[in-house]
């Protein structure tokens, strides 16, 4: 009986699982091996060795880069969490004005490419920055944004949405009766929050904090500008892979592997922790807003708006700069539309490319990510675990490393992809796959499997059931995952800069080249345009997310 019923049902997940493994194997693992194998091979590539690791780790410079990276990551994760959790509480549970606008604005930092943000912040908070000079003229002892404190501050203000959004969702998903039960048992509201509410939302907070940590480990744009001469792993890895002079595949492979191992171990620890703490509270009634005194309401409101607006400072700066006059690279205090004129004279094609790639990648990521998410939630086996790890691995791989791997893997042989647009879309799809996988599995946890069984028992095949019944039910999660993919692809630089070719420049490449060259004006104008176009899907997402209780991430 059991064998008869299980076997046909298992066919669909097995088929989709195999397809997913093939995709990830071909476009993630195989390219990665191409890049990272150098780290375990002797220079002539014939023998296996750990010598490269010993050599790299014996250098204090690289050990320092590992320590710095971990310090930055840990500090930024802690400060982000400390800032975002109270904000999430205020948005989810307190009566503060302008909430919808607040949460809409809070997602914006995710759409700004970090290297442009860092440029804007230097103009404001650098040694000669406008704000620095102003503060110093008033006697405020503000140094500058360089170094670890600056990097941590920038990460905190740009990455806090990763913690904020899932925490708001979790706080809203708690069933009211659980908190009431605590109170009826004699627990005061504050104690209830500490002993019940907080522990229940902690898994969501942690999954957001994990994204922050991974992003800080992987990010290149911010430390490249703000670290000055403090060694940071991602920057050193980049230099060793494609530095003008130091290209050293085996050394770069070592650092690449270190980066992946760091990230992967964090992922594994988180999974272990969450495995025993999955608190699915199918909420019947969302908790009501907490009544607070006017004084506290003012405090909560000012705090929330201060955090959100502070995080938007680079945005305002870029917007203002884009309307100022640049003579060559030099900024002059005069109004001008020249930047936009210059941008639109040459950047229409890159703009179209950005829109096209982001859309294709979001579609492809959903096409692959949704079935993977479904398998992860609905089946349980060793292979499921393996698929889970593989599908999360892209988070742990820096864009540069994956891109180089793809070039090595698909420049010759049976499948040649270099020089076209497809390799770029593939890189984006693989890199952003965890977004759609996580978003789909999150929402699937809330859908009763009995619905699928009902459909199958009514004679609808499992595949049709998935397409006609489950996917429509998951739509909220799928769309939020796709929007996140869309937005982050549109602002992606690290793999694009290695992969783009010919007519396939994107808007971020325009910015990068302008900033590296001598036309910062074009860069800030392009960044403003990018912000404007990514705002559209973000706003659409928020309309949807209001209905789907922010189940993203």
């Amino acid at each position, binding site marked *: 009986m059991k064998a008869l019923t299980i076997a046909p049902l298992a066919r669909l997940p097995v088929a989709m699982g195999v397809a997913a493994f093939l995709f990830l194997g071909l476009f993630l693992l195989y390219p990665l091996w191409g890049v990272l194998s150098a780290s375990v091979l002797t220079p002539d590539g014939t023998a296996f060795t750990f010598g490269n690791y010993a050599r790299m780790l014996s250098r204090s410079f690289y050990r320092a880069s590992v320590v710095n990276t971990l310090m930055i990551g840990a500090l930024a994760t802690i400060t982000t969490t400390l800032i975002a959790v109270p904000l999430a509480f205020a948005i989810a549970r307190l009566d503060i004005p302008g909430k919808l606008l607040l949460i809409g604005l809070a997602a914006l930092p995710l759409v700004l490419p970090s290297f442009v943000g860092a440029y804007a912040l230097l103009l404001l908070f650098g*040694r000669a920055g406008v704000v620095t000079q102003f503060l110093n003229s008033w006697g405020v002892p503000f140094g500058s944004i360089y170094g670890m404190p600056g990097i941590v501050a920038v990460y905190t203000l740009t990455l806090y949405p990763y913690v904020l959004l899932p925490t708001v969702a979790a706080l809203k998903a708690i069933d009211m009766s659980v908190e009431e039960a605590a109170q009826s048992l004699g627990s005061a509201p504050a104690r209830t929050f500490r002993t019940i509410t907080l522990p229940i939302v902690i898994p969501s907070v942690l999954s957001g904090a994990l994204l922050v940590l991974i992003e800080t480990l992987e990010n290149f744009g911010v430390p490249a500008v703000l670290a000055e001469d403090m060694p940071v792993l991602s920057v050193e890895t980049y230099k060793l892979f*494609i530095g003008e002079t130091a*290209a050293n595949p085996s050394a770069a492979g070592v650092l690449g592997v270190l980066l992946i191992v760091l990230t992967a171990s964090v992922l594994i620890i988180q999974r272990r922790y969450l495995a025993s703490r999955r608190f699915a509270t199918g909420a019947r009634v969302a908790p009501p807003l907490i009544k607070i005194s006017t004084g506290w309401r003012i405090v909560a409101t000012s705090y929330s708006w201060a955090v959100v607006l502070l995080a938007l400072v680079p945005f305002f700066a870029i917007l203002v700069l884009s309307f100022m006059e640049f003579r060559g690279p*030099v900024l002059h205090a005069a109004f001008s539309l020249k930047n936009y004129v210059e941008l639109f004279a040459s950047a229409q094609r890159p703009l179209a490319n950005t829109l096209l790639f982001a859309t294709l990648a979001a579609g492809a990521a959903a*096409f692959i990510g949704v079935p993977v998410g479904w398998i992860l939630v609905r089946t349980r086996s060793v292979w499921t675990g393996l698929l889970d790890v593989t599908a999360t691995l892209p988070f742990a791989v820096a864009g540069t490393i994956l891109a180089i791997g793809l070039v090595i893997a698909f420049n010759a042989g049976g499948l040649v992809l*270099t020089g076209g647009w497809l390799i770029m879309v593939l890189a984006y799809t693989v890199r952003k796959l965890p977004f759609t996988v996580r978003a789909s599995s999150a929402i699937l946890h809330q859908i009763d499997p009995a619905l699928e069984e009902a459909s199958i028992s009514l004679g609808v095949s499992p595949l049709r059931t998935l397409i006609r019944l489950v996917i429509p039910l998951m739509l909220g999660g799928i769309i939020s995952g796709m929007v996140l993919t869309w937005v982050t692809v549109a602002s992606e630089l690290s793999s694009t*800069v290695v992969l783009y070719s010919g007519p396939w420049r994107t808007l971020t490449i325009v910015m990068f080249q302008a900033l590296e060259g001598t036309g910062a004006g074009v860069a800030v104008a392009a960044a403003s345009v990018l912000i404007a176009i990514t705002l559209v899907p973000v706003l659409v997402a928020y309309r949807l997310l209001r209905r789907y209780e922010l189940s993203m991430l």
Partner: protein
Amino acid sequence: MKIGSVGALGLAVLALANVCLGSKVEAQQKVVIYSSNDDTLHKLAFAAFTKETGIAVEPISAGSGVVMKRIQTEKDRPGGDIVWGVSRSLLDTNKQYFSAYLSKNNDATPTQYREPTNLWIGNNLHLLVILQNTKVLPEDQGPKTWADLLDPKWKGKIAFTDPANSGSAYSTVTMLVDHFGGGDAGWAKVKGLLANTKVLNRSSLVFQGVGNGEYPLGISLEYAGYVWAAGGAPVKTIYPADGTIAQMEGVAIVKGGPNPDSAKAFVDYINRKDVREMIIKDTFRRPARQDLDLSKLPGSMPALSSIKLLPYNEVAWTEVRAATLEKIKDMIQETR
């Protein structure tokens, strides 16, 4: 199973589309240029080239490391026709990827700026200079020589690029080792200089930093000082009185590239006298050919002959680069 085959089909369709879209562009005459020059120079040179020849330019621009890495990985199926804006040492170490061509400007270019078998030809020279922001640091208080930079009063005030990420920074360090007496003595002095620097990750951060007043001094390239000064920034270009070197950047034709004729046309075009004048006017790239009167051109750059040039064995220093970079890296780490 269905999903699998659908996926495979989708992949095949995408691959086909990739090829089709790629080939559609090839209908027009074009040239694919891998370049590490900056955007401003690209816009200027490519627009003029296309206007004159009707050949469309597809630029792939990235740091010279990325560019060469790409040519190496694509060696079995080159996607580019031209590599441009790459240093002599990179050109020399990657000769096997180039095909020889005798440029029409060959005779106008001094022999030291051409490859004997015509695998590459020099376009422009980068002089290693010191940039000074005269708003942060009054003009008369600036250094005059490389040796001046060793003064401890400059600690943390000199922006420099990580030699691991910049060919010119590597040249600067190695030139100074020779200049300061070579060997351990030279290295000791270089260490003193490095101790005064902020070692930044990208060369653009150095001239942006000096231009915007983040750092009073920066070790950078000649053209950057003129570009920022021309834009109205208080940047002075200092040619160290104790001498400097001229780093050549050149152009080469990628072996087996898809558009060899267009590639040759570009190599001839980019070194023409009027084109070099146009390039100086907008981007201040000092030409490799020596038959232009710079004093009459914008910026009034000094003639090469008026600048003290130091001897520099680029080939020798390139050979020991891996070990030297490790040494520099350790030295930077020790002096933080």
